[in-house]
């Protein structure tokens, strides 16, 4: 019990019960229709309100009873949206119900194939889909079951055709990739309606095993020259070359050193990169990777490339200026030529008390020169050692 509330007097309805609402079961979209509400005892002039609940909401019309009949002329503009329309007629407290289905018309241009994704791997396993939502002249999706023809031209030129029916407003099919990389073109027709084509790019799949080569392969370890690293043509398991611009990373590892990563891009399935010769002789291991696939390892041996053999070392003291000059050379490479200018000579001085001094000197014209101040050195006997590549020079001198 929640107490009493005053109840407003309800207007006495002059009509109650059921109205006979006559409507066709179905019409075509855009077709005018006449709906009739009948009730023999309805007074003339009584207004009937007709609510037509369609796909996008209710639409209302009003008409008076005349001789027990109210007629609603629904114009073509009000029947353009397809779908189920629930009709409810109200007159005073009387009500009538019916249902009307508005069927969509025939498909019209354009029927656009919507293909996705834009590219798939051409491995016969990956797939894309083509979806078509054909519509009639009023923009309604066409009727369920409407057949659509899909036509496909594969990258190798072979044609395919299949059909699909409209279900839940659209028609769709899977398009499995072929094993030929390239462009697959798709078009779709619905009856006499046509549309533009769409493309599905079939790209090469994962690369197969590949190897590397180096040119030249016998550079000295001079820290100066470059080796050209090159992959073999890289293809997937079906022989499709990697797309131009595919990123490849060359990884060069020297014993005890940091790996060097050299990016490169494929052109015609081949990627190239330049590797600078190390300063130290040894073997460099090079691999290339793309998409997680690694090439076979390539071993490049860099032979000793700087000065070789023993070379003379001259020490002279200039008492006037108080300086001491150390001249190393001529420094010769394997072919008897001067080592490249700028090559660093590692000079080690061992003093009379065992103290070690490290110095560097750049070569110029096959000679490396180092000038020391006499005052920097204590008196006594010194040993001097020079290392350049595999070449060694050494001598002793005394500082008075």
């Amino acid at each position, binding site marked *: 019990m929640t107490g009493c509330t005053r109840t407003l007097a309800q207007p006495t309805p002059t009509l109650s019960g059921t109205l006979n609402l006559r409507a066709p079961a179905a019409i075509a979209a855009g077709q005018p229709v006449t709906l009739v509400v009948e009730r023999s005892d309805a007074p003339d002039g009584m207004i009937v309100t007709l609510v037509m609940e369609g796909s996008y909401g209710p639409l209302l019309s009003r008409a008076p009873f005349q001789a027990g009949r109210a007629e609603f002329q629904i114009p073509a503009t009000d029947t353009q949206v397809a*779908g189920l329309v629930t009709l409810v007629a109200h007159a005073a407290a009387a009500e009538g119900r019916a249902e009307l289905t508005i069927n969509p018309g025939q498909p019209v241009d354009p029927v656009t194939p919507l293909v996705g994704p834009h590219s798939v791997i051409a491995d016969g396993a990956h797939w894309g889909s083509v979806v078509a939502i054909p519509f009639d002249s009023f923009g309604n999706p066409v009727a369920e079951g409407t057949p659509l023809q899909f036509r496909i031209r594969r990258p190798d030129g072979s044609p395919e055709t299949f059909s699909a029916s409209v279900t839940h407003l659209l028609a769709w099919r899977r398009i499995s990739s072929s094993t030929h990389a390239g462009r697959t073109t798709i078009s779709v027709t619905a009856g006499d309606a046509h549309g533009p084509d769409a493309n599905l790019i079939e790209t090469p799949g994962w690369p197969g095993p590949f190897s590397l080569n180096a040119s030249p392969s016998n550079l000295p370890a001079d820290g100066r020259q470059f080796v050209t690293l090159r992959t073999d043509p890289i293809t997937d398991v079906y022989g499709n070359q990697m797309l131009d611009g595919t990123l490849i990373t060359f990884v060069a590892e020297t014993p005890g050193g940091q790996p060097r990563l050299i990016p490169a891009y494929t052109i015609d399935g081949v990627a190239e990169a330049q590797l600078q010769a190390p300063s130290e002789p040894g073997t460099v291991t090079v691999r290339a990777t793309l998409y997680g696939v690694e090439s076979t390892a390539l071993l490049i041996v860099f032979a000793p490339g700087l000065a070789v053999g023993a070379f003379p070392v001259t020490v002279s003291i200039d008492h006037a200026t108080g300086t001491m000059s150390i001249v190393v050379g001529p420094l010769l490479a394997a072919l008897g030529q001067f080592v490249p200018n700028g090559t660093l000579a590692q000079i080690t001085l061992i003093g009379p008390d065992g103290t070690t001094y490290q110095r560097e000197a750049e070569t110029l014209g096959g000679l490396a020169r180092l000038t020391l101040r006499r005052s920097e050195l204590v008196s006594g006997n010194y040993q001097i050692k020079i290392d350049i590549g595999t070449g060694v020079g050494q001598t002793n001198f005394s500082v008075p």
Partner: protein
Amino acid sequence: MQKTHLKLIIWALLLALTLAGAWVVVSGSANLLASFERGAEPASALNIVPNVPPDLHVALSWAADDADSGRQIDPLTRSQIESVYIRAWLQINLSYQKGEPHGLTTYFTGPSLAEVSAAVRRTHSDGFSIEQADTAHHLQLHLSSAEGSIVAFTDHDATVVHVIRDAKGTIISVEETRADYDVVMLLENGLWHVRHWVRRAATEADNRPIAPACPGCARVDGTGLRVDGTPFAVAGINYYPQATPWDTFWPQYDPAVIDRDLSRIKGLGLNTIRIFVPYEQFGGPHVDPIMRDRLSDLLDRAEAQNLKLIVTLFDFRGDYSLLHWADADRQLETLLTYFAGHPAILAWDLKNEPDLDDARVGGQIVDTWLRHIALLARSYDPNHILTIGWSSPTAAVRLVGQVDMVQFHYYAPVAELATGYVALRHAAPDKPLLLGEFGLPTWNTVFPNGHTEAEQATYYAALLSRLQHLDPSTGHLAWTLYDFARVPATVAGRWPWQTGPQAYLGIIRTDGSEKPAAALLAPGANLTIAPLPIWARLLKPFWLLMLGATLVEIVGLAWAFDREIRKRRGAAAPMHPHP
């Protein structure tokens, strides 16, 4: 010496004031600085929009996807589609409410945007206004395209309700419709948009929850009820604890009081109680688990004492606005699915006296909402009986087809019962009827319409006798078990003549003793009561006051009359000359 003391005191006071001032300055400055340092919540910078508006409680569920629905859809995409779809409906509803397309471009594209915008404009230009709300969607995915930018799904059995009014505001139509919607959505500029939707005949999605069995639940058998195969005649009472009625019942729920009261009800020979679930106190759409557990506790205790309960839902919920229907749905769903297997529940009473909302809301809207709730209730809990607590037999004729047991309340003279009852039985020839409330207050004061406890007993006996004579299978529940010391103003008002009768409708007095009517409610109770002499009906404070007032008035009038006569006589007497 005294002067020195005074100086010291003054100095001490000055020092204390200085310290207090310094403390105020320092703490104030610190708080000010801290306030400047705090700034906004870092999370607020992200402006994370909830999937659906937090106050929107429209049901949305997914049935199993089609066997071949293309790309396997990921949970995030699915939630984005849900969000856009449910917001699209909301935006249509808001557009209808505004009378113009509002925010539709965010959710619709292509033909659907044009059509829905045109429909909204057309309604407005035709001079109609539409209030519309969707309450439930059951989606089934048919396609997610390979690149994930096209989805197609069917919204099965989508429930949409609308109220159409003419330019004067008169309701033309209140309809709840159910239909399927085939929907195509496209991902455009990173957002999903509805491109097409087409309405079709409703089909049920295959994802409805299965309610647990309830072998001990009451069943309808013709015009009667059965529990465990045995005929069950409802003889009961509407119940609030004496110290905590109405709005204080659930917040101050006390299991010990419940046990004591249930024992007492059982002792009176009754088998059923009717209770009320206040919508807001139970958390609205988000049912408070504490309240739910209290209801569960009450049901368990009733079950232990072999008592049945009629649980009245949505008490004190007067909001019928369409956009909030889904809120009520969620409370219904939570409670009914939770208690679907509880044998102590005799029936779900969907609303107490909803016809009293007709004047404020409109009877069509009330009826449509009740139909909606009844349909949902059956899907959430097919085990229990449904009823609606109409305020009179006349009102109970409404929605007979939607309930299992037709309930009416009766506070009118006994002599008028037969007319309403016969009409109701005619409207519901094959359903049990239940007198869900009846009573006579024993508030007997100087205000008119007071009744004595003897009159209450006489009324109960006469009413129940009449009811048995009309239909022995009709159950009954009196209002209420207790007299109350306090009645909230929200129940009946705040004036004494409003709260007084409400407080004294019980069959047990505030001191805990039973009124004579308490012995009349049990099945088979002796309803023969000696008729009250007429003078007994007059021996009431009001009539005694009236009598007293009348006597005083008569005496007063007589005195005034006598005085006037004397005055006139005095005026008419001849003047005697002075000797």
